[in-house]
């Protein structure tokens, strides 16, 4: 038992009297049993929202971007707000799986699979917005530096929008291979349990013939570690580059050097809130309370609280720097945010993002499931408004007062946003029914050190 020693002060990460076989059963259960009525209801609602969104997208593409609420002054609004919101949500998945792996935080093992799934699905939603905004999405390949028939016309590598193309596509594909590498042994487990030959065939295809040889495991662990090492700077770079879309412009309220760290903290903040929302439902529905424990929820709440404080600190720093810089336009931009016509959005952002996570200091609240769920939703709303405030309030009153205007979304704007939420949940619900939602191979490797049963045996000795 000596090799499985863990300090008694650490609480068990796997609750209940679990053996290795129980873990396999618990994790394979949602995949092997048919979905119940609740799943179908949730799936139908998500599908309806998605189809509604598809209709709005088709209308946008058929008629033109004019169907959105954009005008000459506010040329960017809901589309980029939603884009940044979704990319930000994606960040938590990589953070949990890569950064916490490097720090050897074992509590990540219960939640990393779902968090990574969330990353991939939300980056897909994010990617939709710039592509729709092109108006002619079938020409999206023009973003890549491909030799072409227009003379030697190349893409502009000086543009932060092109940096985004590279950042987001690298991020999406690297997250995908990271996720899939971790999935191989778990798909193989489901394959080995499958009785239905068709199911067996599918899972053996997607597990790429995993057999569990000692050498495979050695390579597997090395690849996971190196990928985590690569993904860590990658995840920080992605939101940094997203913030460059704003920071490299000369709009007051955007042109600040604080943007990259501020955006990254905000991304982690909103992403953890989304993971929290999803997992609180999932642990209940898929009966995974033994693997996603109150302790996991508490840990995530602590991360939300800390990153929320960082974000709050960034808001205040921005205000201070605007005043201290002595730049009239910069000062007005911030005054206008807080007291102008969009004061309510600023107020929502401040109260949801800065004030609400602070109540997590109370242990009773951060270990309470209902409270955690409510706060995670509030934070998601707040982070959407943060992007809205940054984007729209900076644009709607620019340098020239004669072009000042307001922005109001059309039902198409709203429809596309609802559609992406629907699409996200369609993907996530399908995932919850066909993928092993907890990294069972990793959980098994810590069962003896962090399982409740084994801890008790050790304590008796």
């Amino acid at each position: 038992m000596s090799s499985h020693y863990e300090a008694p002060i650490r609480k068990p990460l796997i609750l209940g009297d679990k053996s290795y076989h129980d873990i396999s059963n618990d994790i394979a259960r949602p995949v092997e049993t048919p979905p119940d009525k609740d799943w179908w209801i949730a799936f139908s609602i998500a599908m309806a929202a998605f189809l509604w969104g598809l209709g709005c997208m088709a209308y946008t593409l058929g008629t033109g971007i004019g169907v959105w609420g954009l005008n000459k002054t506010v040329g960017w609004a809901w589309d980029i707000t939603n884009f940044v919101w979704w990319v930000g949500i994606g960040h938590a998945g990589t953070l949990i799986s890569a950064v916490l792996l490097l720090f050897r935080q074992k509590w990540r093992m219960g939640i990393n699979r779902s968090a990574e799934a969330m990353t991939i699905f939300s980056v897909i939603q994010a990617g939709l917005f710039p592509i729709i905004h092109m108006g002619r999405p079938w020409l999206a390949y023009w973003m890549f530096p491909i030799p072409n028939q227009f003379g030697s016309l190349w893409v502009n590598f000086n543009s932060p929008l092109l940096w985004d193309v590279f950042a987001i596509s690298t991020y999406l594909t690297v997250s995908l291979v990271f996720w899939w590498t971790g999935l191989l042994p778990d798909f193989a487990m489901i394959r080995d349990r499958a009785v239905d030959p068709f199911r067996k065939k599918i899972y053996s295809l997607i597990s790429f013939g995993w057999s569990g040889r000692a050498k495979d495991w050695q390579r597997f662990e090395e690849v996971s570690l190196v990928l985590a090492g690569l993904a860590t700077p990658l995840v920080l770079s992605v939101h940094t580059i997203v913030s460059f879309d704003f920071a490299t412009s000369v709009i007051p309220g955007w042109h600040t050097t604080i943007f990259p760290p501020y955006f990254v903290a905000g991304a982690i903040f909103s992403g953890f809130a989304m993971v929290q929302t999803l997992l609180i439902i999932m642990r209940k529905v898929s009966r995974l309370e033994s693997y996603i424990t109150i302790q996991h929820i508490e840990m995530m709440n602590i991360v939300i609280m800390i990153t929320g404080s960082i974000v709050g600190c960034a808001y205040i720093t921005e205000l201070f720097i605007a005043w201290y810089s002595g730049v009239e336009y910069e000062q007005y931009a911030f005054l206008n945010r807080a007291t102008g016509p969009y004061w309510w959005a600023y107020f929502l952002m401040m109260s949801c993002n800065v004030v609400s996570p602070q109540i997590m200091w109370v242990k009773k609240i951060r270990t309470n499931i209902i409270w955690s769920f409510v706060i995670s939703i509030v934070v998601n709303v707040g982070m959407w408004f943060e992007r809205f405030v940054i984007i729209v309030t900076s644009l709607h009153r620019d340098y020239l007062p004669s072009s000042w205007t307001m922005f109001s979304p059309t039902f198409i704007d709203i429809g596309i946003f609802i559609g992406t939420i629907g699409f996200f949940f369609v993907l996530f619900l399908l995932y919850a029914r066909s993928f092993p939602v907890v990294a069972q191979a990793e959980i098994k490797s810590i069962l003896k050190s962090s399982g409740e049963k084994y801890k008790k045996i050790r304590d008796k000795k």
Partner: protein
Amino acid sequence: MSSKSLHVLFDDDDNLLDAVKEVVKNKIYINEVYTPFPVHGLDKAMKLKPTNISIATFMYGCVGFTVAILMMNYIMIVDWPQNIGGKPSFSFIENAPAFVPIIFELTVFFAAHLMVIT
């Protein structure tokens, strides 16, 4: 080497690890060990060679780094230099700060994907 072979099943990772150590000590050849989850220390106990994959990944990253620099140098400096927002475009070094994000992204892209494929 004898032609006899044994198939052994274990239901506990600690027993397996002890047995592997014992077998290796007696210089008996182990063909393969299959486990349903990673058993730490098994590769060392079996005297498996450590993998070179991290070194390979570093080289893949270097490839990505080089590709990014050559591509952007050709496209932005050699083939068609343009004045975009007053950013200097006469030599690679002058324009380099704007290229850093893409150099970084391509380095990671090449390193990660080529590693997983190998």
